[in-house]
């Protein structure tokens, strides 16, 4: 089992790199937070120097982000074969797939899991949902027909650690399990960026918990433009060969 850390900055590894095989760097949810080429190269070199694998994570994008990614990928051309790429937008996939990244992984946003914490009760034993329906709510795009993922050159799917459990059979490719922060929903509305440009990137200040227990069985967390849940219990899943630890939500 590989263990990776998804970090905002290499300082997150200041305490030591034991038991870590690689780093995730980048952003899943906001194109205004795509790191600069200098930051990417800096963190890539840090990974290389420390014998760690490097995974570049790219977010959902508009044409603004697409233009930025095109320039970024172009500047990374000489080293992209040593990087894995996680894409969370099929537009980003369309830019990246002709390049020679070491591998392409379908990000959490596109893995299409159902993440609603209420599913812990909605599909609990004794519910009226048929067995195949219960299984469906635990699945992801990794359970698509295998030949399709292969045709698209996708070798990995990034998944959340669902509170109601993950389906662990018939996975066409290997999966990376993120913990403890699982995303539920997102929007393009925030207090900066799209609704009030230019973005000043202080969306971390716009964070709160949302509590509606017992209707929603756990507290939710609102950071910037994303709603998260938290699940620190790591299950054993044979389809998962990589754990991705997020010390904090990266938005």
């Amino acid at each position, binding site marked *: 089992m590989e263990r990776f850390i998804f970090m905002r900055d290499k300082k997150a590894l200041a305490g030591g790199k034991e038991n870590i095989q690689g780093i995730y760097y980048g952003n899943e949810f906001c194109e205004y937070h795509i790191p600069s080429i200098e930051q990417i190269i800096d963190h890539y070199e840090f990974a290389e120097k420390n014998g760690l694998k490097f995974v570049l994570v790219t977010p*959902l*994008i*508009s044409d603004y982000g697409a233009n930025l990614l095109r320039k970024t990928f172009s500047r990374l051309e000489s080293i992209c074969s040593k990087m894995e790429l996680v894409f969370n937008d099929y537009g980003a996939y369309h830019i990246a797939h002709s390049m020679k990244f070491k591998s392409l992984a379908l990000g959490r946003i596109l893995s299409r899991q159902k993440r*609603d914490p209420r599913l812990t009760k909605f599909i609990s034993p004794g519910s009226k949902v048929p067995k195949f329906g219960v299984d469906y709510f635990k699945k*992801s795009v990794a359970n698509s027909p295998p030949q*399709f993922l292969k045709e698209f050159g996708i070798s990995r799917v990034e998944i959340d650690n669902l509170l109601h459990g993950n389906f662990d059979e*018939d996975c066409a490719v290997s999966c990376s399990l993120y913990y403890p922060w699982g995303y539920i929903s997102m*929007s393009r509305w925030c207090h900066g960026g799209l609704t009030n440009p230019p973005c000043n990137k202080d969306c971390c200040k716009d964070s709160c918990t949302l509590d509606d227990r017992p*209707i929603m069985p756990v507290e939710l*967390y609102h950071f910037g433009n994303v709603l998260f849940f938290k699940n620190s219990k790591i299950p054993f899943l044979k389809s998962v060969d990589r754990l991705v630890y997020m010390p904090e939500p990266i938005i």
Partner: protein
Amino acid sequence: MIKIECPVTQSREVKILARMGADIFYCGLIPDGWLDKYGTAAAPNRKEELVSQVKGKEDFKKILALSHKENIPVYNTLNSPMYTLDQYDLVLPFVDELVSMGVDGFIIADPFLLKFLSLKYKSIRWMISTMGGVLNAEACHFYKELGATGITLPTSVTLEEIKDLSSRFSRSLDLVAFVLNENPVGINAYCAFAHGFDDSITPCRRLYHSRPLGCKSCSQVVDVPSSQVVERPAVYIEPSTGLDSLWDFQECGICAVKFSGRFFPLEEKMQYMQYISKARSLLEESASRDEFIKKYGLLFHHIHKRPMAIEDSYYPVRS
């Protein structure tokens, strides 16, 4: 003239909605065996209520026949963002059957399924659903290369972005925009809340007790005075219309506007059709964009019994 894409659920609705100005119909028929195997909450077309579904193949054939008599094409929604391997056993024969019945197209979101089916059925129209989450031109290229013939743009795309995408793709893809009954604040394609299990208010609209968090470390919950705990929904803003953008849509080449509402009874669908048709007629009555905006404002006031605010617009013009 910009077209109107209208939901239909029963054959008896077709003639009335066609006379009211519908140019395209979309509906949802569920494959045989699906409900027994997966239940309603895992619906194959994103509508968990049975009332939203066409009641069987016979009525679906009637919908096709009556619509085609009015020269109106019919799309069946098959827009789950993901179909798993076991679901293909039901989906593929279902598509074969609907194509043989004469369906004109499908509204689809799963790119793998799209690629497979568009190669098999080259004369069928493949409209990408908002569940496809198309927010940029590269994604338009992506789906087009897989065989898409049209794209329904998510309501979270801005007016400026719509105009830009339209300038690049309106000749090669049918671009469609929602104008009523959608929530443009979240991105539907990427919302992973579950629906269809109970009748309670959807999670994005519920009121939550909210406490601010310290921004330094998200693992530290800061104790705050109870006076700072507020009740708020997960989604603050709920705009009510995209019809104020109709002039811009027509000018930039948007093919059709659409409203959500397969679950509405016929009478409500008629009200929405009347509203949209009236708004569309204002396009011909207006000599300029400003004139259209003014006339639409009066229509909005008449319908909603209050003046329109910028927050009401799905696609506000951003300065």
